[in-house]
């Protein structure tokens, strides 16, 4: 399972970084979202991966780490709010500059 989770994180972060480096605001927003997902799964797995265990001490023999779950929850909330803000900002940038290029204008016409 460790390998699977590691692969998922790797794929999410790689696609996220690739999309972040694109020139259109929409792909940058998508990229940052994927990057955020990758980071969240990474943070979640830092408490150790266990199957079918409750995050309550005493409720199971080998409880999973509740702290990483709390951290991920905080990170998800913050990431969600930031993404919403970024979408609004990208729309305003599009509206004010009449282009969805991150620099406000097309250098070379590539999408």
């Amino acid at each position, binding site marked *: 399972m460790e390998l699977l989770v590691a692969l998922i994180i790797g794929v999410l972060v790689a696609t996220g970084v690739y999309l*972040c480096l694109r020139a259109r*605001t929409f792909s*940058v927003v998508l990229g*940052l979202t994927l*990057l*955020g997902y990758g*980071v*969240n799964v*990474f*943070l979640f797995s*830092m*408490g150790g991966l266990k199957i079918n265990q409750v995050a309550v001490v005493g409720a199971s023999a080998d409880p999973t780490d509740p*702290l*990483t779950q709390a*951290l991920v929850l*905080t*990170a998800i909330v*913050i*990431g969600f*709010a*930031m993404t919403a*803000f*970024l979408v609004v*900002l*990208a729309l*305003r*940038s599009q509206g*004010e*500059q009449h282009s969805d290029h*991150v*620099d*406000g204008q097309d250098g070379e016409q590539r999408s």
Partner: protein
Amino acid sequence: MTHWIIAPILIPALAGLLLLLEVRERQRLRRVTGLLSCIALVPVALVLWQQAAQGDVGVYQLGNWQAPFGIVLVLDKLSALMLLLTAVLALAALLYGCAGDDRRGPNFHSLFQFQLMGINGAFLTGDLFNLFVFFEVLLIASYGLALHGRGPERVKAGLHYVVLNLAGSALFLIALGLIYGTTGTLNMADFAVKAQALEGSEQILVTVAVLLLWVVFGLKAALFPLYFWLPATYANATAPVAALFAIMTKVGIYAILRMQALAFSDGPLAGLGADLLWWLALVTLALAAIGALSASRLGGLVAYLVVMSVGTLVAALSLGDPGTVGPALYYLIHSTLICGALFLLCDLLRRSRGDSDDRLESGPPLAHGNWLGAAFFAAAVAVVGLPPLSGFVGKLALLQAVPSAPYWALLLLAGLAGLVGLSRAGSTLFWRVHGEVVGKKLGKRRVIPMLALLLVSPALTLAAEPMLQLCAGVADQLADQTIYIRAVLGGAS
């Protein structure tokens, strides 16, 4: 008395929430609320400084949870000094904002308060994840503030700023995950203890995490190669916002200083990344000097002077020597307040020049050219470090503390570049004039906050000896981390 520690976070938080409830049309009420909060922060910061100056480290356990498990706020001399600096700068910036700039967007006042809450929280917290949360609070408020007032340039600079910082936040989380995964703690003091006993693969993982932290803090502090967002963002921000942002880079510097003093002064991770920081800071200094020479707008020039101060400070602090921390703190106080004053002055000049804005080209003569010119001259002398103002004292103390040829050469050359840039800007703005006076009258409510910040420089010069000793005291306390660690982990409440 112990509850005072949380006041610098609670006051702006409550004021910010209250401001959201208040009716938008009643601008006066909102100004009073915001100003009351900012005014209250000054005596609170003074009380906290008094408390910290006795040499004890104050610890506030949120929810009364024991230290490594719960979140703590920690008040030592360094945090108290930074809180005081923030309070003074914020009050001047908000007074300037209340002269009219706050009308340019509906939520200026509440965003300003949330920004203060984030900055104060970042200075107080003793928990790494909590530091992340406060960084996010100050960032999301700063996103709103950076876009305050309209304009395509502002949106473009704002978009870059937001995307860069979101990527930075992702790196911050990865670093925190690694630290938690290997050491099982996020409490700074506990981490400092556990970092002494690392070995093998765990040490490698924590090394990676710490280097990632340096990247994140370097992004906040605007260190090469991560400073390119700063000139555009700061030069395009509204004046009171830009003045408040003068402290934002210092939050990054504070975080580097805190982590370095706490966890990396000895043990297996001692001096981790210090060489890297040293060279990057020197490159930052050099590039900021070039930027200052090539700036085509006064706002951009001042923004590069901010980057220059970052390079100066990080290079001195990366040495990890307590002897350099004291002068660096003196220089930090000086540069923060003077750069704030310069941003306000830049806005005053912009208002007097009509369509010429703050572009460094021939424009209409200024309505109060003599007074503005005198203020600009004083600010320029202070910021590049010519005698007799505080920049000179700060740079002299830094040069004495850091006996390194590249540092001396770069610091002096960067000062020269700043001087050339500012002289060129000043002679263009004040002497190469044509046509009629177009500018509006300068409001007293704008001039007074700017002068107040500017007058700190002569005050810092007159009180140079006590201030340098005070900063040395802060550095001494920072050098002996056993006090901090014992206060946090000893269970004192």
